[in-house]
């Protein structure tokens, strides 16, 4: 191409680039500076300061939205976390699994009456999660107290070291690793344990911590 025509064409191209984004869609903010020369060798810092738009709060741009654990996830997770212990309720004198007996109430679809899971954290769900946590934590702590030395503990990992046990539970129930020596994110739990233990003894102290962690959003939401 004759060099005589190159300069005007280049000017026209730059003009076009000034009003359209690199992919060709119209620029909604024509006053905003665009750098449609990403293939050049310029470094980002050569451009000076950039305008960063805050992420709109009502737009899902950074991954999927959070969900409540489904009944089936809870049904399968709790026995894994507590060595086979699960939530049971007594119905007409018979002990049955709470997640099964109350599955509809907790929002599980049966594909006959309800074709989709109701995973809204409703008051009824929250109520029965409290019941579940009370039942499971009761059984787990009882098992811990009856365990012989050397046997793995379900809740009271190290009775002598409260923070170590809280770190253990934080990782086990919430999937959050707290390094040895750190108490980050454990302060509130420690205060809960201390307050309840002072009033009701260590067993109830661990009971309260177990319930609080089993019903925490770190476990119920993902």
């Amino acid at each position, binding site marked *: 191409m004759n060099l005589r025509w190159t300069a005007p064409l280049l000017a026209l191209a730059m003009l076009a680039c000034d009003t359209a984004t690199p992919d060709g869609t119209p620029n909604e903010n024509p006053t905003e500076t665009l750098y449609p020369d990403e293939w050049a060798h310029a470094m980002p810092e050569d451009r000076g300061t950039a305008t960063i738009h805050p992420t709109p*709060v009502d737009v*899902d741009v*950074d*991954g999927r*939205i*959070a*969900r*409540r654990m489904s009944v089936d996830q809870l049904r399968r997770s709790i026995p894994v976390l507590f060595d086979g212990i699960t939530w049971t309720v*007594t119905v007409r004198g018979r002990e049955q699994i709470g997640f099964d007996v109350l599955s*509809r*109430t907790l*929002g599980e679809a049966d594909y006959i*009456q*309800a*074709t*989709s899971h*109701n*995973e*809204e*954290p*409703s*008051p*009824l*769900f*929250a*109520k*029965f999660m*409290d*019941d579940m946590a*009370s*039942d499971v934590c*009761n059984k787990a702590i009882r098992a811990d107290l009856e365990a012989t030395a050397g046997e793995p503990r379900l809740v009271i990992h190290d009775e002598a070291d409260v923070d170590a046990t809280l770190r253990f539970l934080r990782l086990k129930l*919430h999937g959050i690793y707290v390094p040895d020596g750190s108490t980050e994110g454990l302060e*509130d*739990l420690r*205060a*809960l344990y201390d*307050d*309840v233990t002072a*009033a*009701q003894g260590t067993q*109830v102290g661990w*009971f*309260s911590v177990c*319930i*609080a962690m089993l*019903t*925490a*959003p*770190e476990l*119920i*939401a993902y």
Partner: protein
Amino acid sequence: MKRRTFLKTLGIGAGAFMAHNYLRPRRAFAAADRSFVFCYFRGGWDTLLSLDPRDPNVFTEARREETRIELAWDQLPAGYPRTILQPSGSNIQFGPVMEAMAPHYEKMCVARGLSMNTVAHDVGRRYFITGQTPRGNTAAGSAVPTRIVAQQGDQSPFPNLVMGAETYNDGLPAFASGLTVNSVTDLVTSLTVGPGAPPAAVRDRIAAYRDGKPLCDPVGHDRRGLLTRLGDSQIKARELVESGLSSKFAFANANDSEMTALRSRYGIQNIDGVPAQAAAAFQALKYELTQVITIDATQNLDTHDGNWATDQPDNQAEGWTALAQLITDLESEPDPTRGGTLLDNTTILCFSEFSRTPLLNNRGGRDHHLATSCALIGAGVPGNRVVGATSDVGMTPMAIDPNTGAVQDGGTIITPTLVIASLMQAAGYDVTALRTDGLPCLMA
């Protein structure tokens, strides 16, 4: 109520709590919202005994072959009238099992000659529950209570409470889904601190921990408010179990004068029986536990055999009697938020999956019949009105003038869809999903 306020109140007011025994939940309804009670008469009712009777002096045994209608009221147990009931001033004729309901004629509209297009229990039931013809045996779309609550919004602890019946949610907001409890006992369990729960002081401390603890991921996980909603629900659940509302459904409690009075008024013998469900509906509306409640108003009415003569009248009468008491109670309970009485702001729909054949079968029972009736009571209902009819030969559905409800050749055949559309439209709700408008004659 804010979380911190609630906890503070709990701490300060423990003594007051014990003294008052319950905390009435805050008034939740918007003034324009309406409450609903759906009463399902399970098994297929005999409308000749209730909503669509015939005069025994006209429809005699001698004319059975001509009319294809056989009342057989002489087989009913002693104590039931052998005549049509029609209070002075009433345009509605009631059958012998509706003695308790007859005085409520002014608040009531009876639709007769509904065509169910099915004689299968599941299909008929789902037709009425959803207002849409099922796809085969499967419900099409959401249950009517779910549709209503989806439009009303989440305004009470159990917005759509379903006791012992079916409910469906097909693509509507989750809060509108029916919260199913199988019985009054289950409802009480839902409102009671669970077995093995820690002492109240520990529960308070756990609640304070939840309150003070920062949200684990306010930017990501709470972007749509899930964590906030969970926290609010935990508070709401705690409010409910601590409020003592379960005591409002403890019908067996001999030491509570309110329970004693309810037991007496409704004739409650069994806490999970039909009268207890009607009483629970009243209490749930009175204490604003729910916006829409569905109850199982009868024991099984599927009387194909000789049990028609005994179970059908007794079970139907039990349901109607309980319902009559519910109406009386709603009518006498003031509604401080919406004005008037609870009945002024509540619509009741009584339905069954179909009716029973006008002729007895060779086993002395009645089989399934396509034409049925239903009853609408309360707010938005044209009182003291009969809409539609079944024919005097074989009780087939007759077409009506949609404006007057009078029988009209070439008119409209009433269906559950039209009844549901009328009920919703009269209350100001959108009926687009039903693909039809309501019948003017069914709307006040």
